[in-house]
């Protein structure tokens, strides 16, 4: 494997007496989809919140592009080029697609918003991702389907020349056709050279798009393996028991 773009080493995080993350290591490679799996309560959300800068780990190192960094807030993560697409999407229903994509980072001309440049850039980003399902990018998000909303959220994350995109269960609430669309989009992100972290419960999805798989078990990293080296059953064992015959950490 090439050198990881983002590398977590020995991350620990507790909430009071609950030790949620125990010496967790994770490597995220550019141009690859790294699937993060684990049962409910395994610590997946806590781990990505550490990457997003929402939680600060008690100990452990974060290495980004070869440099040791501290991510002490959402803005620090954004500055590094790390974007998170949350499960509940964090879109404003009452705003249109362009407004949502630029929310909090509006382009301005003097004091006024530069609507034409934002709209052009939004259009270009969606075209670059081969998104054709959205008819008008001036329609409000409330009128979009689940898959389209997910697409907008992902497009927002890549708008900023981001390097790492973390997707929290992007297909959880979607139908078959829409899941397919979103998974294709996830694959295209990695093919464009981004480092993608995909959190999912759906092993079919993971085996379809992931390059390597990291399994958390009760707050410990049970193993990070190449997809080609494992079978579905071995991944299930990692998720449910924390170990599997023939899988080396």
């Amino acid at each position: 494997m090439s050198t990881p773009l983002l590398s977590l080493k020995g991350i620990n995080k507790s909430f009071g007496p609950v030790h949620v993350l125990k010496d967790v290591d994770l490597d995220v490679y550019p141009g690859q989809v790294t699937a993060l799996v684990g049962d409910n309560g395994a610590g997946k959300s806590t781990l990505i919140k550490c990457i997003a800068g929402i939680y600060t780990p008690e100990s452990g190192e974060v290495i980004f592009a070869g440099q040791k960094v501290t991510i002490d807030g959402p803005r620090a993560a954004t500055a590094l080029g790390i974007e998170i697409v949350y499960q509940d999407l964090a879109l404003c229903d009452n705003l249109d697609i362009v407004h949502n994509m630029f929310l909090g980072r509006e382009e301005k001309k003097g004091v006024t918003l530069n609507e034409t440049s934002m709209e052009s850039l939004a259009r270009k980003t969606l075209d670059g991702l081969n998104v054709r399902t959205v008819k008008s990018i001036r329609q409000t998000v409330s009128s979009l389907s689940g898959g389209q909303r997910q697409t907008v959220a992902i497009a927002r994350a890549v708008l900023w020349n981001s390097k790492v995109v973390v997707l929290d269960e992007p297909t959880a609430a979607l139908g078959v056709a829409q899941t397919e669309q979103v998974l294709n989009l996830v694959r295209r992100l990695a093919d464009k050279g981004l480092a993608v972290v995909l959190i999912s419960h759906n092993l079919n999805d993971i085996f379809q798009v992931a390059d390597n798989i990291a399994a958390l078990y009760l707050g410990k990293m049970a193993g990070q393996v190449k997809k080609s080296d494992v079978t579905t059953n071995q991944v299930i064992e990692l998720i449910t028991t924390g170990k599997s015959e023939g899988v080396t950490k």
Partner: protein
Amino acid sequence: MTTQPVLEKETLKGAGANYLSRVKAGDIGSLPAVLGLVSLIAVFGAMSEYFLTNRNFANLITQAAPVMVIAMGLVFVLLLGEIDLSAGYASGVCGAVLVLLVTNHGWSWYSALGASIVIGALLGTLIGTLVSRLGIPSFVVTLAAFLAFQGVLLLLAGEGGTIPIADKTILAVENSNLTPTQGWILWAVTSALYVVGGLNRINSRRRAGLVVELTQLWAMKTVALLIITGGAVFELNQERGLSATNSTKGVPIVAPLILVILVAGTFLLSKTAFGRHIYAVGGNAEAARRAGINVKRVRTIAFVLCSSLAAVAGMLFASRMNSISPSTGGSSTLLYAVGAAVIGGVSLFGGKGRMRDAILGGLVVAVIDNGMGLLGYGAGIQFLVTGAVLLVSAGVDAVSRRGALTN
């Protein structure tokens, strides 16, 4: 492979169908207010011969002005999904400060007005801070402020109760008119700016290769707007004095003041990042926070704007009544203002509404008030009808929202 943005060839028919489907989907905008206003005017016009006279038209504008200004301030707060019950008495308190400074302390009208707006901004800062930093529901904070401001107003007005004001400039705002020429200049300049601004927007979008609003449709809307406003200026410029010696004609001075607040507020809401953030916080506060928007700051500023505009309304009350009394801004003022915003199309759930909705709704409320008064109905019936109209518009808001959600 890249796709060129398709320049959709829209037709008038297509635009009409689009609008219909939007209405069906629950995005009704100001349609109920416009229909309501037209039918109310028709009914009152048929029932009272005085209702459609120039004199009553001018009277209607000055009558509606203070409530409209409070309603425009409330738009900022309502867009966040919050409420400010204290805006009415805030206008009373600020009006009292203005009148006291001018009448008892000999301040000039402009420094007194400035001071009263600063007081309004401070009251708004207090309310906004309590709501956004401590997280007390705005309903409770402003209900407390509603009582407290009523007390402050009583203390300021003192035992006698009424503080008169004789300053010519302040009194002119609600009681004098522009000359007919000034009225036409105002109309021509505003119309020219409106047309140039619209053409500019269309051209810059066309240059950037974006989908352009149907020019034909824009032209029709603009011409309609110019005819309506031009007609209003023409009517107001007719003689409406009661006697030959006392000539009264022209656009009331308060009209350009309202226009300025409307334009400034619309600019702030639709053209600046701050305005966009207000809509975002009202639509999904958590999404706004994650996008890096300082939600607490946005909330606080919205309350500051609301109370500051209430201070301007306080000046209008002082001008209209020639005085400030302990009941200024009390009684039905606040509910009329909230009603005006909601009737105009501002959603009580936050995230939806525009500045001009407050004007439109303010006109509906004023027409009901004025028309029922002319027909000889007492205050009891007027309150009943206004309450019913407010309930109906809040109901329309809730139902259309449900329609939008289930789609």
